[in-house]
């Protein structure tokens, strides 16, 4: 249970840089999720923390120790791999106890700690089974058990749920959350799934192309994205983005439609500035249906398609030559081609600079 600090961390393969200067401090017992599209360097960063990849330059500290040149076994961390990496020739009990056996712990200690982990994860019935005889979810639990048994300074998870089917993924996500509440430890969790990031993290670190785009608590990232990349990556369905120009103190879309400038951003934009208007589907709702937003902009749009999800519908509508998504709670039937009036909750909308794609909001 130790803080982890990454200082100006770089990684290159041959002459191809993949991680360009990561600075990150992870507090004692914090649950940090590194999220980003594939190839963004998040797994490489994790493997450098684990000691499975060499560091090209920069420093990694675990607790007060600089671990750059320490082999994995001396870093006192545990890792759960995407493909579980259970030892195929050992049964569950031996898999769980392997680390302690290597550390030459006395037999009764190994037995007690293995049993304790098995109880936490509900593995007691499976102790004599071989990994090949377990289901995906069970393997996942054994992999987590193997990580717990060693009582590490930190847990590293490398996309642990991506090999599971959708239902099991949700279940295991909850278990990981519970596990962290039970076994207080520093956790670094890598995923490309923004839902996992939102639900699990104390702090989300959004990465792209080897750099950190933004970091912060899930709700802050959700409500105050620093740029269009973070805005479109976090949140599902993704944020609608439309090119626009500030004209006569209004946001003017390409087809001439005008909406007000969000009040909190009024000071930060000038007339003639090219911007990107961003708003989440949740903030574009059918007028006079369920959600009442004061001061919303009224828009009449043609419906392309309605996706019925049960308690809500996703409406695909045409706005300024582009398809945008809107959300309708307690849905009624909507026909494609139909015209509908929507309210855009303008005070929750975002403006980004069109050239730099950075948010025009005053930094928090």
């Amino acid at each position, binding site marked *: 249970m130790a803080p982890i600090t990454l200082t100006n961390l770089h990684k290159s393969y041959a002459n191809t840089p993949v991680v360009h200067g990561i600075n990150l401090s992870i507090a004692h017992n914090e649950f940090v999720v590194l999220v980003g599209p594939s190839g963004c360097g998040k797994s490489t960063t994790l493997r450098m923390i*684990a000691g499975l990849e060499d560091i090209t330059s920069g420093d990694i500290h675990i607790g007060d120790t600089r671990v750059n040149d320490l082999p*994995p076994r001396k870093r006192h961390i545990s890792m759960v791999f995407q493909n579980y990496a259970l030892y195929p020739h050992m049964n569950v009990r031996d898999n769980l106890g392997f680390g302690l056996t290597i550390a030459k712990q006395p037999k009764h200690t190994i037995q007690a700690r293995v049993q304790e982990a098995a109880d936490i994860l509900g593995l007691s019935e499976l102790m004599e089974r071989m990994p090949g005889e377990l289901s995906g979810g069970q393997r996942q639990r054994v992999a987590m058990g193997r990580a717990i048994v060693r009582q590490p300074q930190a847990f590293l998870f490398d996309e642990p749920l991506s090999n599971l089917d959708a239902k099991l993924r949700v279940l295991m996500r909850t278990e990981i959350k519970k596990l962290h509440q039970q076994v207080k430890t520093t956790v670094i969790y890598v995923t490309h799934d923004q839902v996992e990031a939102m639900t699990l993290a104390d702090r989300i670190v959004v990465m792209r192309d080897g750099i950190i785009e933004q970091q912060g608590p899930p709700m802050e990232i959700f409500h105050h994205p620093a740029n269009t990349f973070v805005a479109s990556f976090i949140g599902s369905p993704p944020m609608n983005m439309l090119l626009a120009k500030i004209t006569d103190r209004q946001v003017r879309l390409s087809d001439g439609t005008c909406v007000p400038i969000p009040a909190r951003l009024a000071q930060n934009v000038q007339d003639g500035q090219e911007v990107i208007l961003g708003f989440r589907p949740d903030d574009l709702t059918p007028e006079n249906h369920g959600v009442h937003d004061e001061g919303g902009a009224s828009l009449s749009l043609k419906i392309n398609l309605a996706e019925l999800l049960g308690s809500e519908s996703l409406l695909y509508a045409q706005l300024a030559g582009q398809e945008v998504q809107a959300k309708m709670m307690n849905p009624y039937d909507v026909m494609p081609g139909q015209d509908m009036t929507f309210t855009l909750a303008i005070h929750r909308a975002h403006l980004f600079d069109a050239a730099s794609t950075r948010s025009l909001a005053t930094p928090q």
Partner: protein
Amino acid sequence: MTAPYKRLMKLVHWTVTFLLMVMMSVPGLWVMLSSLRPNREILAKPAVWIPQDPGLTNFISIFGLGDEQVAIPVASYFTNSVIIAVTSTFIALAIGLAGGYAFSRFRFRGKNGLFLTLMLLRAVPGIALSLPVFILWSKLGLIDSTLGVIIVYVALNVPFTIWLMDGFFRQIPMELSGAAQIDGCTRWQAFWRIEFPLARSGIAAAGMFAFLTSWNEYALASQLTRSTSSKTLPVGLMDFTAQFTIDWAGMCAMAVIIIIPALILTFLVQKHLIRGLTFGGVQH
């Protein structure tokens, strides 16, 4: 498909399989049968299939024990063969294990070129190298020594062993070694505790191939060996040919002596061999 048609196809299938098996087995069977009867009967026309008076006379006489003295030092040949085959197999396995692991796990300069070279070396027939090797060995004083043959056999076996082991190690996910290292192993420990046991089938298969190659090799050994101090069993077979006669009976008896250890060994590791050759031995 109708049931009778299916049954017919099955019949055809088994008939063809049977015929192929017969084609492969008959020479071996003929050797076995001939080892149990005198030369006269072997050369009889028309052929006598079932030995009329089977006995172990041939075996007894090649060991120099019976009334008919055939002065062939089978025991020395056998010892030489065992020493050469076992030693060269172990050395080839050790090199193949290390080489295969390196090719499957590490990136290094010239890796692909080196691997290709190893494979191309396989394409050179050993006998083409026999003259250069002979000259070299005679200068080094390695002619007619077990060491000389062992070195040649190691060279013969290493490329194939590396290729096989590379394939087996590729089957073992890299994360296992990583997981073991995080669990407290050194890279060396991770290899011996995790990757080595998982590659067992592959090692058995590779060992088997190396052993059989060395055990059965004739062409090179016939050039490099002279006397009882290094001659192997296959080379020893030629002792049965004299200027005007060939002692087929004795030769067959010795051939059986060559075949049996190989057969027993193959039988012992066949479970691993099949698992190894189908490359599916590792559960993920």
